[in-house]
């Protein structure tokens, strides 16, 4: 509803407030008068009236003209097609590149996810006033700079969609990576990201990267219950696979198959989300860690490294190299990467050194990894591994 009001009035504050007011009116009246035959339509009509009232109050001189335009607006707002179009416009507005990345995340969660400012603030560990300010400032910029409520043109949509997918994936990782048994709100964030992923998929059913991102999130989230045991991080190889969510895995696999078929049928080459989803599909396809098709994982990382030649991708590829060509080949690759401040780089080095029997070097690598992580479950895992090293 906020999305459709925002399109109608071109103002997020008015849309949000009007929707809120309509809900309050509904809560007062419906218990007494009964729920109207078309609750959604009732709410939209009420909210539209409230919004027009507000514009009249705020803008006396122009009010008659504007209200006349809006009342005369022939666009029907009932059919779901329009609602979906409006939500899609809103996604692109919230994730506009002219907004600061942290503001994009906050706006998306607020306006599409419907989370409260307090919830978003808690999830990102910032004071509520800071988060409220961030959102207010972003909304003010949308208004003053006239960031349009519009799905970008065909030649821009791929770039702009990249920014949207990045926001959703960031929300997911915020919940997934730091969620290790700590704050339950953070696993709500991964659920919210999956919900947003499903919404995007519904809005853009033919886009491979949209399907890839949803598959990636489902396949990662399917393993979340097995990722932590007794307060300690459990690596993929040691996870109890009977604890994996089979429904999510089946859904993720179906999406990955769909992506493969689209690429095989002459579609665009897969992007990062489809490739990462495929990596996760290989892992979740193996009944146990030993039967993982590491050759396939390595080929997927080769493709990913070609389109995204970053040190982080190279590090993840090296993990697959260790399984295919052995830990010493992988260690040479890892040592060549400039990732000194990154805990996963130290943890990967530590594990490779351990497997090569170089206990003293492994020990100092574990120390460096421990120093670089704040996550208690990961610290517990690293400390245990360090203690198991031969003297």
């Amino acid at each position, binding site marked *: 509803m906020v999305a459709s009001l925002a399109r109608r009035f071109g103002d997020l504050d008015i849309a949000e407030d009007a929707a809120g007011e309509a809900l309050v009116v509904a809560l007062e009246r419906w218990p007494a008068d009964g729920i109207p035959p078309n609750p959604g339509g009732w709410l939209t009509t009420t909210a539209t009236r409230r919004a027009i009232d507000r514009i009249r109050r705020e*803008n006396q*001189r*122009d009010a008659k003209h504007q209200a006349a335009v809006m009342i005369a607006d022939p666009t029907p707002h009932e059919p779901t097609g329009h609602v979906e179009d409006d939500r899609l416009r809103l996604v692109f507005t919230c994730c*506009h590149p*002219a907004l600061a990345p942290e503001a994009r995340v906050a706006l998306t969660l607020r306006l599409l996810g419907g989370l409260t400012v307090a919830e978003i603030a808690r999830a990102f560990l910032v004071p509520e006033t800071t988060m409220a300010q961030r959102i207010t400032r972003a909304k003010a910029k949308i208004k*003053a*700079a*006239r*960031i*349009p409520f*519009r799905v*970008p043109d065909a030649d*821009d949509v791929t770039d702009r969609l990249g920014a949207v997918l990045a926001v959703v994936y960031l929300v997911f990782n915020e919940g997934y990576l730091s969620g290790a048994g700590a704050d339950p709100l953070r696993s709500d964030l991964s659920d919210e990201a999956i919900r947003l992923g499903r919404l995007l998929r519904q809005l853009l059913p033919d886009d491979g990267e949209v399907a890839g991102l949803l598959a990636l999130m489902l396949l990662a989230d399917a393993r979340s219950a097995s990722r932590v045991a007794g307060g300690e991080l459990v690596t993929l190889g040691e996870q109890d696979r009977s604890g994996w969510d089979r429904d999510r895995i089946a859904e993720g696999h179906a999406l990955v198959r769909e992506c493969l078929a689209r690429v095989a049928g002459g579609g665009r080459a897969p992007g990062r989300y489809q490739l990462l989803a495929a990596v996760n599909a290989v892992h979740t396809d193996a009944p146990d860690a030993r039967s993982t098709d590491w050759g396939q994982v390595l080929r997927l990382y080769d493709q990913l490294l070609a389109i995204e030649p970053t040190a982080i991708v190279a590090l993840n590829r090296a993990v697959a190299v260790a399984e295919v060509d052995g830990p010493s080949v992988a260690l040479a690759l890892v040592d060549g990467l400039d990732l000194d401040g990154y805990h996963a780089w130290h943890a990967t080095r530590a594990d490779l050194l351990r497997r090569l029997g170089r206990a003293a070097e492994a020990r100092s690598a574990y120390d460096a990894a421990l120093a670089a992580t704040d996550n208690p479950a990961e610290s517990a895992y690293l400390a245990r591994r360090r203690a198991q090293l031969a003297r």
Partner: protein
Amino acid sequence: MAQYLLSVASTEADYVGVDYSSPEIQQMFADTGAFNDRLQAEGHWVFAGGLTNLADATVVDATGTEPVVTDGPFAETKEFLGGFWIIDVPDLDTALKLAADGSKACQGKVEVRPFQSEPS
């Protein structure tokens, strides 16, 4: 429609010791001229201009009883306004696209700022 100021960042190096006959500078002038022509042809043009070096600036302050005239800019900064366009376009997306083309043409960073709308 809304108006935006596209300002181009310059540094001292853009003014001092520049060889105006060099092919790069000539190309930059030609590209900027072509961009200006396009703005006019597409109906986005309001005004544009290039400024002389920051050293030529004078600050006038008449907020007190008597106007005070001082040599120099508001503040000495490494980057300063070297030139600008004022354009009239439907929304920020159009302004950002034109800013990208303008930046490419004049070979400088461009800041996009909306004008305040008319008080109603």
